[in-house]
């Protein structure tokens, strides 16, 4: 069985760079690549009733947009380099979702980009890369 690598993206250049880096590693190791687009979402927010009513529809729209604008073109581009690539869209906390996906897909390594935020910003808003490094069940490569 071939190894599986997992790359997390969020529509930013940093994420794209991480996916491309992971694709190069996958090609060298003849591994399969899973590219996961994580839409940041928490089940513990306070919404208006109308937002709740429309939520299912909005969720479908978010997934379609992520696929059409970011994931599908990226997956197509990576496939052209001759590796096996699978694209996924998930909602949730990025670090938690990627950590869970590593278990689900049997990935042996996770690749993510970083936003290059300051220590203060990381303290206030949290850092996906920092959190993932702490909770991931497999080695994490943070692509600068």
């Amino acid at each position, binding site marked *: 069985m071939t190894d599986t690598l997992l790359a997390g993206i969020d529509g930013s250049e940093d994420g794209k760079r991480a996916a491309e880096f992971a694709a190069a590693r996958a090609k060298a190791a003849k591994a399969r690549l899973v590219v996961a687009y994580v839409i940041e979402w928490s089940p513990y927010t306070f919404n208006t009733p109308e937002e709740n009513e429309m939520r*299912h529809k909005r969720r479908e729209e978010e997934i379609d947009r992520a696929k059409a604008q970011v994931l599908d073109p990226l997956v197509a581009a990576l496939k052209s380099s001759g590796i096996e690539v699978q694209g996924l869209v998930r909602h949730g906390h990025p670090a938690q979702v990627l950590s869970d996906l590593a278990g689900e897909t049997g990935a042996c390594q996770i690749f993510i980009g970083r936003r290059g935020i300051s220590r203060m910003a990381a303290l206030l808003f949290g850092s996906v890369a920092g959190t993932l490094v702490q909770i991931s069940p497999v080695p994490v490569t943070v692509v600068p």
Partner: protein
Amino acid sequence: MRHKLAAALPAFFWTPAALAQEAQEPGIDAVINEAIAPISDAIVSVIFYSVPVFGTQFPLIVLWLVIAAAIATVYFKFIAFRAFKHALELIRGDYTDPKDAGEVSHFQALATALSGTVGLGNIAGVAIAVSIGGPGATFWMILAGLMGMSLKFAECTLGVKYRNVYADGTVSGGPMYYLSKGLGEKNMAGLGKFLAVFFAVCCIAGALGGGNMFQANQSFQQIVNVTGGEDGFMADKGWLFGLVVAVIVGSVIIGGIKSIARVTEKVVPFMAVIYCTAALVIILANITEVPTAFAAIFTGAFSPEGVAGGAIGALIQGFKRAAFSNEAGVGSASIAHSAVRTKEPITEGLVALHEPFIDTVVICTMTALVIVITGSYSNEAGMSGVELTSSAFESVFPWFPYILAVAVILFAFSTMISWSYYGLKSWTYLVGENKTAELVFKLVFCIFVVIGSSMSLGPVVDFSDSAIFAMAIANIIGLYILLPVVKKDLASYWARLKAGEIKKYRTAWLIHTE
């Protein structure tokens, strides 16, 4: 629920505004008041028909709500206690399928429904109950709150069970749907349709009045109080305040401006936490007084001194406050809870158990304890309502009235947003779901914000208050007929839960390797 003050103490809030208004524009207010007063009075006297009990008035609608709550409690074999922990696990998301990430969670449905009930009633209404019924009213309030949990469970389960789910995944639910569909299943389609329409009409009236005009008026009174009272700059600027609030409300409900909704979403729970923290600090700072306070609450519940009607008087005040505050039996929250993503309607009912618990057993009790511990309820000045709560907190934190003013306004705002939705859903139930009808209702809702804050329409508000409780008449009749449906679903769910067929996902997440 906060609008109850209007019925409880109409003169308390309306008099100052009425005097101010009469001096400047005797025309419009007076004309509307005179036109509406006879009809309003007649309806109010029917809905809030009270019987004298041991020297105090006992509104029968409170009895109607409390009896239904007691029956639901016994009928579901104290589900509130049996399922208390399981409900917390549901709220935490332990049983939520990870594939449903991004959908409306149990927590979100509960939080949205709570923002419609937690508010001025928890701050001002409790003060009224304790000042009239003495410390013992607290005991009965907690008891009624605990019983209300089972009633809320039933109505929110039905709301999800009989909601409409459309092709694009949007949902519409609430009493109007379970009354018509649920009773239809029981071969009572005619009665169901009648009750549903009756409920919807009352809900629209209640949304425009108690859920809107009363809120606008109360917030404006708070603004006047902190900007120099009747002589201050804002005293005669009700229309201005109303316009500003109407624009903000409109931008959220019509414009769909997310940022404003986002801000209130963050700030309102924050205010609730600040309020409870302040209450806890006061309680802890006076920890030596706590046994005395509890003694006062217990002895006051059964043999109070100086309370009109004695133990019954205290009981009436406590029951009334609980019923008016957590809205169990009114059916409003069922509309908000219906949006949740779940395959098991029972789960949302169980989650909704915590709504009366948080609203009445936690927050109302905090207010009551602060008032009892600081001894503010036995004041010489005869204070009641927000004023009493404010002075109780002020006796420990001198700056608290300002925080309280902000809290009242924000709570009022979030209540308006919630009720605009309840009214809208009832309106579209009656006229059909289309964008034009929705826009018309939303515009009318915004206009009523201005009317509510610029005029002293006591009779109109009394009327809309009674409309909210008229919702309970239709809703509870339907609930009695549909309780067996809920019981059957509960038995099925409970058996599957105990048999391990309904599994936790959270524990599965911890296993990463395969």
